[in-house]
């Protein structure tokens, strides 16, 4: 109670008070709506769906993996069908309920088609409790340029991988086409030696599916 400690304490608070007016490190607050911190690239919030050229063709193939993996089960996917009732490789509905989503990023991790990514958008408050917080596909879809903008490192890596895969696929297709062509030509020229390639692959094929049942037992 008595003594110099009282004055010392007051000097400390006075210093804090005065310095908060001109020292940056004293007053670290950023006045948010007007000023904001630069976004960190690895910041992740709510997921979005990516599309390459047109929003009608999202990358998502409606495989339902993310919906199954999502811990709070907030993704609802219905696969699109064509006129004949044949399932298509794209979603008809893709809803994420933001009131349930816990922003964990599991959906991004598990998607095998690099179709869903975590966004930087965090100002997601809404007036309605149910409809407004249910993000339908048209609100979720964003172009791949957006992804490139918010997370350049990840985007370049993933794009490069995709391109590699595509190139490989193309190369394989070309090879297959070339092979088929060659085969056809060969078949044309050597019409008598038909069963040439088929026996080579056949012994391998049954060996693979035979293993899992053996383990399961």
């Amino acid at each position, binding site marked *: 109670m008595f003594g110099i400690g009282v004055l010392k304490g007051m000097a400390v608070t006075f210093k*804090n008070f005065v310095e908060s007016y001109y020292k940056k490190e004293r*007053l670290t607050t950023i006045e948010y709506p007007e000023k904001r911190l630069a976004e960190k690239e690895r910041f992740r919030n709510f997921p979005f769906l990516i599309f390459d050229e047109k929003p009608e063709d999202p990358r998502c193939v409606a495989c339902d993996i993310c919906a199954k993996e999502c811990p709070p089960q907030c993704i609802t996917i219905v696969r699109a069908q064509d006129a004949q009732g044949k399932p298509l490789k794209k979603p008809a509905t893709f809803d994420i309920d933001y009131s349930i989503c816990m922003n964990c990023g599991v959906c991004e991790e598990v998607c095998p088609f690099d179709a869903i990514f975590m966004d930087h958008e965090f100002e997601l408050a809404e007036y309605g409790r149910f409809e407004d917080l249910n993000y339908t596909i048209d609100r979720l879809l964003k172009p791949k340029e957006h992804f490139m903008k918010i997370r350049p490192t990840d985007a370049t890596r993933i794009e490069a991988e995709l391109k590699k895969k595509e190139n490989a696929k193309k190369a394989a297709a070309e090879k297959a086409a070339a092979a088929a062509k060659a085969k056809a030509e060969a078949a044309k020229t050597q019409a008598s030696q038909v069963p040439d390639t088929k026996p080579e692959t056949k012994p391998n094929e049954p060996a693979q599916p035979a293993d899992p049942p053996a383990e399961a037992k």
Partner: protein
Amino acid sequence: MDQLFVHIDQAIIHWAQAVLPDWMAVIVAMKIPIVAIAIFGPVTMMYLTLIERKLLARIQNRFGPNRVGKFGLLQPLADGVKMLTKEDIVPEKADKIAHLLAPILIVIPALLVFAVLPFGRNMIAVDLNIGVLFFLAMSGTTTLFIFTAAWASHNKFSLLGGMRSVAQMISYEIPFVLSVVPVLVVVGSFSTVAIVEAQPGLHWFVFTPWGAVGFFIFFICAVAEVNRTPFDLPEAESELVAGFHTEYSGMKFALFYMAEFMNVFTVSALVATVFLGGWQGPILPSWVWFLLKTYTLILIMMWFRGTFPRLRADQLMGFAWKFLLELTFVNIIVAAIWYEMRSPLNHLTAAAILIVTIIVLFQFNKTEIPKKRIYKYAYAD
């Protein structure tokens, strides 16, 4: 400039005399200071809350309220609207009448004491010849309503807060009143105007030895009187939820708040009047000087709040009874000696006596730290 408000007052009275019948003109003349105080008090309170929040924020390296209006200047209005629209909850077992009356009545003494404050030359609502006494008596009744509120709430935390408030009031009222006595001895009057006029120019009482000590005691007791940190035991939020106003919400709570802040203002104003020369001061208009001193003291109170932790109940009591009380007694005698002796000698004598007293009291009040015990074991040595 100095007599600005006085001239406004007279202009209104002249106008009233010209336009209205005589009896109404008299009523208007009477009502002007009342209306002025009734507006000034609450507005001061509203903006004191803002100043306090801003100041504490800066002490804690934050911005404080800055969303409503420029620099948060409309924040008090927003708070007021919020308070008014809030649900008023009365506990089921509460004493309904007392629960309602306490917050209303607590504002009355807080407003009444404005009447005897000299805001500037000729700027006083009523120049009572017992002004200081009136002030002390009125501000003393605040505790009564705090206890009423505490009792009526039917809540143990409220009651504890109320009890603490009473105990604190009894302890601090004595040095509070006694520390003004030296001034009364020297001035020879209870009137606040006379006290201010006895300190012309820069001859404020705080520059005399007994005045400095008296100011120190009076200010500390004033802080304790209005229940502010570090003496805020009645509403200690970390111990008693919210102390005596635990069970209050909405406008009733706001009234308690209003009373507290108006008390802060009036008590600072009284300290400024009695020891800092009131509106006396060179160059600036008198009311500017008065407000300057008052607000300086208020800011110091807020600075205290930003700095000190709350006292323990026994420390609080001990400080009042074992230190302040003795010092005030000695101070009265010193003031009398100072008054009787001639100029250079009286300052020296007074200062010497006071310094010796303070040192002695310090020695007596030293907290005893028990020596570290050393255990001796049978097998040692």
